């Protein structure tokens, strides 16, 4: 049984997915957008696909599959989710319709479909980056949020509370969209989505869609308020401390969004806000949680055999291949992850206190993913966390305290960039 694993070369998810596939003992072909130096040496295990052109990638996958039959395809991020859908359609594999994957990828298209289906979403308006923000600012409703249509990790997402703030935010998002790594990415980079700011508690929903039905795997609370002006994530905690009725409303909202987009199979990651008016779909992606955050998820009760301490990645791979699924109930322990905030702008020289942070009770891992010499860029221009802290314990409160204590022990030595 062969899995085609779509791994962009810049993903954090490589180890989690590759090792999960190894544990399952399946054949794996890793597809990336740039060639591995081992591709000639292992032509069945490595292949290069044109991730920028899903239809072309599907044709390439078709050619590959003639010699090496493929039984499942898994994407790990927003871009490859569309590629995976195209490949699944081409090869007749389990996956999402391409149109649904595309709609989930584009925040404006997503908003349109959700609004048309009656899903609670913020009011929104699409503006070209060539627009005059001075003119638009006068008719905008405040507070509002400006965001690019596709950038990940809340890069370029800025709140504005009044017309001067709108103009400043617009100019800032405009500058991000004009950066070389963004400007050439397509028509979407020439637009800004302006939407109503929705107050309330934000959660992240991890789900697995099976034949169009969402199985909520977990709801992560985000204890730090995400009220802007920028939206850098910090802590995710599960189980959620929200009331059962609120959690039910959130699950209903996620299902309604999946229905509206037409997603059929595979993982979803949704950002949903809950307030006294109910659950509001902020964004939904047809991919699993990003970064190293999936380390906070473990399914089953331990011991041995199918369903014991299974990772999210293993569940996703099993589902893609049509293999038997273990229990989809999360472990009993509380767990959490902190995406370490960018401590400042500049060149990272060293991180001190890692040993001390790892020694904090309940902390399981302190992963510094930024490398010495890397330029750290704060939000909203940046989108790369310098690392992740993971913890497990008896309660969400204890886990949250451990994450904060570990973070307090870290010291980042940063020099000004040239």
């Amino acid at each position, binding site marked *: 049984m062969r899995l085609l694993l779509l791994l962009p070369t810049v993903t954090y998810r490589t180890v989690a997915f590759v090792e999960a596939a190894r544990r399952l003992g399946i054949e794996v072909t890793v597809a990336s957008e740039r060639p591995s130096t*081992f591709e000639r040496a292992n032509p069945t295990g490595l292949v290069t696909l044109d991730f920028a052109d899903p239809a072309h990638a599907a044709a390439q996958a078709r050619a590959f599959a003639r010699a090496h039959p493929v039984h499942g395809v898994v994407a790990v991020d927003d871009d490859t989710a569309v590629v995976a859908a195209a490949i699944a359609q081409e090869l007749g594999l389990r996956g999402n319709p391409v149109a649904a994957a595309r709609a989930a990828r584009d925040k404006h298209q997503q908003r349109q479909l959700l609004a048309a289906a009656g899903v609670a979403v913020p009011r929104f308006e699409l503006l070209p980056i060539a627009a005059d923000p001075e003119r638009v600012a006068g008719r905008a409703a405040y507070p509002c949020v400006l965001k690019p249509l596709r950038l990940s990790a809340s890069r370029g997402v800025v709140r504005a509370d009044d017309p001067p703030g709108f103009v400043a935010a617009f100019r800032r998002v405009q500058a991000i969209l004009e950066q070389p790594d963004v400007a050439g990415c397509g028509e979407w980079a020439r637009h800004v989505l302006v939407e109503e700011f929705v107050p309330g508690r934000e959660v992240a929903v991890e789900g697995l869609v099976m034949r169009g039905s969402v199985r909520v795997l977990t709801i992560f609370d985000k204890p730090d308020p995400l009220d802007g002006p920028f939206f850098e994530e910090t802590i995710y905690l599960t189980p959620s401390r929200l009331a059962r009725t609120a959690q039910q409303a959130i699950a209903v909202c996620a299902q309604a969004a999946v229905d509206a987009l037409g997603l059929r199979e595979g993982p979803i990651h949704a950002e949903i806000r809950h307030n006294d008016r109910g659950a509001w779909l902020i964004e939904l992606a047809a991919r699993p949680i990003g970064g190293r955050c999936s380390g906070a998820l473990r399914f089953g009760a331990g011991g041995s055999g199918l369903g014991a301490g299974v990772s999210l990645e293993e569940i996703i791979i099993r589902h893609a291949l049509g293999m038997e699924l273990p229990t989809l109930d999360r472990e009993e322990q509380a767990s959490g992850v902190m995406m370490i905030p960018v401590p400042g702008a500049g060149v990272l020289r060293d991180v001190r206190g890692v040993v001390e942070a790892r020694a904090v009770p309940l902390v399981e891992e302190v992963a510094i*993913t930024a490398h010495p010499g890397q330029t750290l860029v704060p939000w909203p221009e940046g989108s790369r966390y310098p690392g992740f802290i993971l913890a497990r314990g008896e309660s969400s409160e204890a886990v949250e305290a451990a994450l904060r204590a570990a973070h307090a022990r870290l010291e980042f030595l940063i020099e000004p960039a040239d």
Partner: protein
Amino acid sequence: MSAADVRITAEPIDNGRCKFLVSEPLHAGGVRRFASPDEARGSPLAEAIFAVPGADVSEVIVSGNLVTVVKRSPAAWPVVGKAVGQAIRAALASGQPAVTSKPAASPEAGAAPVDDALYERVADLFESQVNPMVARHGGRVELIDVQDAVVMVRMAGGCQGCGMADVTLRQGIEAMLHQHVPEVKGIVDITDHTAGSNPYFAAAKK
């Protein structure tokens, strides 16, 4: 060539491990690993490094123009590194082989000869095929040891901290080992990837 002409670059991996890149080759006969002063006997460079005062060196690996030193003491590398650099320069200046070739294993030694034989074959594979491939991305893969048919490697350069290092390890190196040295039972990456300062692919997105 005078000792002053030799350029040595120290690349500490962590406080316990440091690589020394030397402008001149030290050992052309594959990888030599010394895990004790006894094993180093007869190899002047390794003997000298084990004798560095206050370092409590536990391992010396010599391959081509690369020397990897593992120490137990908390002494800082800038201090220990000067003595290691002197040992390297002295070995090159002597005109004698810095390290001897690996001796043939005695048949009475149990499992070790099997690992030794595997080590040589894996080292040859790394030298002839693996490292030329990863070098195209500025990487290096260092064979550290073979124990019970499990290969231990350390990745460096563009591989260290690279977002695709695990793909290189599993889909590249391990696959080649299966093909060329099928007796190998596994591969372990002991790299400190957090210390990679120049990864070829840096993780950047969700």
